[in-house]
């Protein structure tokens, strides 16, 4: 397979490591009775450029590489890594980590390695997809054109980042599985001032592509116009209401609701350990029958997509909730084996220096039947939340929050006044049971999500149609 050969060159050969050296390290790991062992090689290039105050003040560039060595025995894991991809160091790491195996019999788990899977993105190096001068010119053009959009704009910040990640997973069956992962992101944020009042607006996007993504159509300026629009709305915003009320969530990025309310709670590790509010609830109703939610790592070019996960398993479109019934969890290899199910291609890690665990890819709700306008019309008094910042969940109690950054009051079926951002809080296992209308306008987010879990960050996507929830707590100041 040419991709694997390319990555073997860029990681193994570049460090004078031969395939038989990888076999030697693996033999060391397998010299004790283990259930699984892998070596994860990685080489990453990253750059960022940022503009503020009208000038491109700085850029950064980084190159990192290394290898992580892991053995798993039962539910025990031994792990070591090094930024030096050298045989003696990898052998020492292998010897250290196998100490986790203290007793037990020869494990008999046959692992199956996939031999083909779709490539969801091209093996591009985004850093070299545009000349440095053109990156600068793009930032400057966006800055200049954004400033013309509204005379109240006081500051414009534009950033451009790209990553080029080569990974190679060596598994205990001797297989070597490679992936080349491009990722780009652009962000525009503005500060606007009117009568001494100062507000911010921000918009960005990207995906597993190269910089040409931002040059297609007028995408860069679309981000800018959206950032300006949000700041304009926020300049008019009044105090947000406080208390329990009907909430309508807009399509797209508000799907962060799904990520926080149910996504984390459906990750295999928490459920294997019984620490999630969703533990042991497969087959039970956890949402209204209007709701079908999937985690889909197979969408071409999306920020949260992967051709293979970080354990070499091809990603899947995993149904989490179907017509309101909990169907299953997201799994990596370790938790899948311990729970007696199949891995779902959700084994992800931030880098070679981190252990893989079950993580989301692109989590979204399938479209329903309702016209979005009809949904608004059905609300006598409530909140329409169109944009969000981040969120957080306590997977054990099920309580989750997400913070609106653009919201409006709904009064008698009409969107009326904009209100300040507020945090919404709810309970994961029952919030979706209160979904009474699902729009026909499913949207994925623009490609900005980053998810944090146990100190590890990975890029993710979310999406949903317009949703009506009959009662959520809105954390405003107006009682």
């Amino acid at each position: 397979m040419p991709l694997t050969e390319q990555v073997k060159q860029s990681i193994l050969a570049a460090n004078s490591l031969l395939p038989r050296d990888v076999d030697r390290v693996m033999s060391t790991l397998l010299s004790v009775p283990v259930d699984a062992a892998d070596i994860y090689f990685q080489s990453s290039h990253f750059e960022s450029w940022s503009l503020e105050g009208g000038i491109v003040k700085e850029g950064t560039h980084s190159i990192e590489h290394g290898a992580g060595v892991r053995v798993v025995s039962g539910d025990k894991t031994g792990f070591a890594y090094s930024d030096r991809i050298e045989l003696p160091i990898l052998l020492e790491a292998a010897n250290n980590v196998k100490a986790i195996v203290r007793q037990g019999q020869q494990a008999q788990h046959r692992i199956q390695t996939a031999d083909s899977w779709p490539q969801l993105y091209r093996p591009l190096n985004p850093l070299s997809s545009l000349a440095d001068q053109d990156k600068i010119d793009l930032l400057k053009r966006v800055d200049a054109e954004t400033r013309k959009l509204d005379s109240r704009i006081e500051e414009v910040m534009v950033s451009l980042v790209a990553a080029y990640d080569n990974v190679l997973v060596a598994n205990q069956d001797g297989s070597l599985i490679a992936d080349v992962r491009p990722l780009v992101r652009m962000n525009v944020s503005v500060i606007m001032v009117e009568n001494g009042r100062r507000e911010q607006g921000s918009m960005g996007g990207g995906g597993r592509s190269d910089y040409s993504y931002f040059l297609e159509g007028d995408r860069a300026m679309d981000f800018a116009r959206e950032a300006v629009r949000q700041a304009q709305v926020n300049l008019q915003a009044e105090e947000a209401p406080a208390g329990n009320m009907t909430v309508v969530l807009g399509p797209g990025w508000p799907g962060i609701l799904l990520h926080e309310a149910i996504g984390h709670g459906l990750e295999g590790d928490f459920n294997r350990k019984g620490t999630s509010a969703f533990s042991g609830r497969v087959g039970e109703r956890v949402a209204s029958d209007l709701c079908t939610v999937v985690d889909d790592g197979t969408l071409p070019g999306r920020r949260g997509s992967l051709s293979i996960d970080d354990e070499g398993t091809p990603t899947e479109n995993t149904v989490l909730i179907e017509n309101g019934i909990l169907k299953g969890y997201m799994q990596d290899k370790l938790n899948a084996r311990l729970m007696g199910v199949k891995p779902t291609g959700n084994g992800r890690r931030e880098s070679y220096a981190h252990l893989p665990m079950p993580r989301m890819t692109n989590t979204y709700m399938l479209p329903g039947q309702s016209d979005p306008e009809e949904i608004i019309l059905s609300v006598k008094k409530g909140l329409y939340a169109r944009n969000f910042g981040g969120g957080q969940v306590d997977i054990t109690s099920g309580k989750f929050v997400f913070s609106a950054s653009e919201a409006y009051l709904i009064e008698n079926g009409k969107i009326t006044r904009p209100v300040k951002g507020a945090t919404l809080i709810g309970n994961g296992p029952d919030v979706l049971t209160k979904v009474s209308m699902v729009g026909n306008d499913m949207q994925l987010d623009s490609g900005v999500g980053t998810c944090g879990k146990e100190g590890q960050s990975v890029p993710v996507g979310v999406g949903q149609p317009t949703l009506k929830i009959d009662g959520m707590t809105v954390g405003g100041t107006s009682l």
Partner: protein
Amino acid sequence: MQNQDEIQRLKHVVQQLLDEAKQQGATAAEAAFSVDNGLSVSARLGDVETIEYHCDQGIGVTVYFGRQKGSASTNDVSADSLKETVKAACSIARYASEDEYAGLPDPALLATEFPDLDLNHPWDINAETAITLAVECENAARHFDKAISNSEGATVNSHQGTRVFGNSLGFLQGYQSSRHSISCSVLAGSGDSMQRDYWYSVARNPALLETARFVGEKAAQRTVARLNARSLSTRQCPVLFAPEMASGLIGSLLGAISGSSLYRKSSFLLDSLDSQILPDFVRIHEQPLLVGGMGSASYDAEGVATRARDIVSDGILRSYILSTYSARKLGMQTTGNAGGVHNLIVEPGEQDFAGMLNLLGTGLLVTELMGQGVNRVTGDYSRGASGFWVENGMIQYPVQEITIAGNLKSMLRNIVAIGNDVDLRGNIRVGSILLEQMAIAGE
């Protein structure tokens, strides 16, 4: 306890980078090299779960061509890689715009005294001993109360690192430091009424860690206390931030008075220098040279000398938090805070925690906050919370699924009291903080 050979080895690499930058035409440069080694062991349900060996290194260089700046970093310290890294930084600098404020610090401000701050206490611990400690910690939690029903495990961490920084003005310094921790997280209850909480102890010197047993029992105690939590009705009431939550509140204040927020005009405290931002009994000061402190350092990320100073006294903002760049943008002088503050101390008041509960009287004690609902530009604050409902100074019952909201500007001005129940685990040392009133949203 500083291994001078290791520091010397890193200094040599940093000097090589600086020389290479000069070679490639940079008019000025700065470089940092850090190495960190560690062991992390976790135990769950009475047995080891993971053993992780950590070994990280990173090297970063910033070059200037006049007023143009570029940065690059790598974890590969081979000679070829260092050359390539400098080349990448130089290439970026050539494309970056002229920025009249860019450049190295004023040489007169660089640190010249380097007292031993007693930051390095390697822990002579192997995986086996660490496992024993983690198991002891988790067992203490699991056996503390019958209500403890499950566990996320206990973790023992030991890290030791060396950091060297140098610039083309001739500054080249390094030091070693260590950081060790024990933490534990357990669950109580079952089904729809499960709760989870945790506790941790962290110290530079392992001898100063709380015992494994104490950490486990405290985690269990905190978890059990959360059982049968209810929501509250929507209301206004006084709010007491427990010390570990109060440090977040002070963190938001620091963000608003830091140079990068100020020159971008993205702060709710613009132009607040010399004005009243807190009640007049509040003093906040920075003490960078505390022996053994978690945030101690004799110089900042640019080599500028740190110094003890008041940031707020009599409730009046006396100093911003500035790096060389942000200071120049604001027409001021750096405060030695490139990379952040070093031991920020909110002067404690008279009352201990029980006394603070008494002062609260009837209201909300917040022990956990969720989400990022803090707008630094406007000061608007709205976050998910859990904690306890308090009446007449006595804890009544746990609460959850509520939000607390307000505006930081008035929240800070309306601080009623600060406790002496100071949390010493972090870089911000503060006791519990009582706010006169916030909006609570609930069922």
